[in-house]
């Protein structure tokens, strides 16, 4: 049950930035979530509707930008999307790999008016 603290944290960040920008209303939140840090799913919207009630963010929509995992082989330089059950390079079999994308877990921006 981590949705509640995650949602509270999202609200705190959004309200703080909206306050700094001196806006009256938050209409949208843009979140970037990588496949490898997958603790957030769309059920957050449900918690959000409750948590954001009676704040300037009430009714705001959450937008999730999902980033697929991407890895780069350090041997043959192939960049690829790993399979669920095998991360090694599909070309040369190496497991000397750099994770290029998939660890994102941040709020990119908010829509205000």
């Amino acid at each position, binding site marked *: *049950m981590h949705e509640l603290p*995650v949602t509270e944290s999202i609200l705190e960040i959004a309200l703080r930035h909206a306050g700094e920008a001196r806006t009256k209303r938050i209409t949208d939140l843009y979140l970037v979530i990588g496949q490898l840090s997958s603790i957030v799913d769309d059920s957050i919207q449900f918690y959000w509707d409750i948590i954001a009630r009676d704040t300037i963010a009430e009714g705001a929509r959450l937008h999730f930008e999902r980033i697929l995992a991407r890895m780069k082989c350090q041997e043959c330089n192939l960049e690829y999307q790993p399979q669920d059950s095998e991360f090694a390079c599909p070309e040369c079999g190496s497991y000397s790999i750099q994770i290029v994308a998939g660890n994102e877990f941040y709020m990119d921006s*908010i829509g205000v008016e």
Partner: protein
Amino acid sequence: MTQRVQVVENILSANDRVALENRQTLDAAGVYALNFMASPGAGKTSLIEQTLRRIFGEIRIAVVDGDIATSIDANRAAAAGALAVQINTGGECHLDAVMLKNALAQIDLGGVDLLIVENVGNLICPASFQLGTHQSVLIASVPEGDDKAYKYPGMYQGVDALVINKIDLLPYVTFDMGYFRRGVEILNPGLVTFPLSCKTGEGIERWIAWLRKQVGSRKKA
């Protein structure tokens, strides 16, 4: 008229800030702290018991135990000689920095060299909630299967040491050590790894030697 305001901030930034405060508290008291994470039943508490048995009287240990509702684990740690503090998360699947902060306030940190925080048994959420400990240890176990790194990449990426517990069961269960360690190596290159058995004691001395070194390098002035 809708406008965009740039934020670019980690979603759990408030937790991260409290974690930083915890780190400062620990550093000021000269305490080295470890966050133990694992699935339920991997052997977190058993490893704490085995560790205490070997370094009791030499290194002063406190244990903070996170559990949904019971104090079974804290009781086991206390029975093994540690100063134990229980945190009941009341349904939360992980410890967070505020919970640890409250627990630290209950401990005389001046009398502690090593603090072990036993997180709630879970391979997902604890990885995202920083606590402020110096390092994290993941305790995997053979019967869980060899695919855990692939299924819980966030957890395997964020740790500083990996214990593979219950190696005495290797002859009885399907566990491809090569496949397992390949997944780990990709997510966390060069991760220090301790295959061991809390039941037979095999491999534990190497773990204890590592722990001694970590604590020793942060000895109180």
